[in-house]
């Protein structure tokens, strides 16, 4: 019963994170929309690094979920998540479609987990 109650009660950490991230994110969205008129253009020093935020962040989000470094090369490569990720990556590259990428990746994961590597 206590565990059940625990799951329903909100964690104050979660709300703190939501509110602070929300405030920063709104500040980022509003930044130049608000400032425009006072400054003419985005300073190049700000603009240059921002161009690389999407690929760097997305890759840093994806790869650790697909690759776990293990003692042997074979164990590292023969991971169901990595293999499914390679399939999904190929589909993403060919189709640039989120739906197709998720479908291919989940299908490959289930095939490996429940059929091939079971």
């Amino acid at each position, binding site marked *: 019963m206590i565990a059940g109650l625990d799951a329903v009660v909100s964690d104050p950490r979660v709300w703190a994170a939501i509110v602070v991230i929300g405030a*920063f994110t709104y500040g980022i969205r509003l930044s130049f929309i608000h*400032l425009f008129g006072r400054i003419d253009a985005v300073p190049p020093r700000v603009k240059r690094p921002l161009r690389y935020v999407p*690929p760097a962040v997305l*890759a840093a989000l994806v790869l650790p979920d697909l690759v776990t470094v293990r003692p042997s090369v074979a164990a590292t490569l023969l991971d169901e998540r990595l293999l499914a990720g390679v399939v999904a990556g190929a589909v993403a590259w060919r189709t640039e479609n*989120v739906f197709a990428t998720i479908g291919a990746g989940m299908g490959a994961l289930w095939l490996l987990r429940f059929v091939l590597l079971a």
Partner: protein
Amino acid sequence: MTRTDGDVLHEDLAAGVRDVTPLMLGIVPFALVAGIAAVDAGLTLAEAVGLSVIVFAGASQLAAIDLLGSNAPLAVVIGTAVVINLRMMMYSASIAPYFADYARRTRAGLAYLLTDQAYALSIAEYERNEDRSRWRYYLGAAASLWIVWQIGTVVGVVVGAGVPDAWGLTFAVPLVFLALLVPAMKDRPTTAAGIVGGAVAVVAAGLPLNLGLLVGALFGIAAGMATEVTAT
């Protein structure tokens, strides 16, 4: 406001709604995953919806959920999410001239709805069609995204709670990012940023405080800038 204004509103707003519709194919699974991942990490429905309404930025929501689920320090959760959302500063800068004539309050409202998709669609439309009411077109696209995002989150929470763990539904999270990553690596510097960012994050996965993502991202950004310098 006259009746004809009402008609114009309808037409430009509708154009935004119409143009954003095909993009929903990518938004719907993304929103579902945001809901599924939230339940999986132990968030309540109220917290999942709060995240989607207050933050309203998918990639940062998923990263925050992941870090909260693994008990990362609050500063790391916030720092990581904010770095992910920094890209929207580019959109803010790029779309700002088109909103410059609007009242401060209008601009404050439009800014809240700024997303990758609303930005990309609106900028393309503004350059193509100068007669469009900018805020109406933008609102049509951006508000549609907002509504679908909230509904998708709720459905994801409800669905996610009923699916066995063995199905590994949270694996859809890296798959969503993968689908966004591939087109983001469009030239040599952006590809270098992705490869270095990902590789460093894998190696740094064992770092304390779950700092791996942040460190990987910063190395990736530096690699992109370094490659740009050597290429020119």
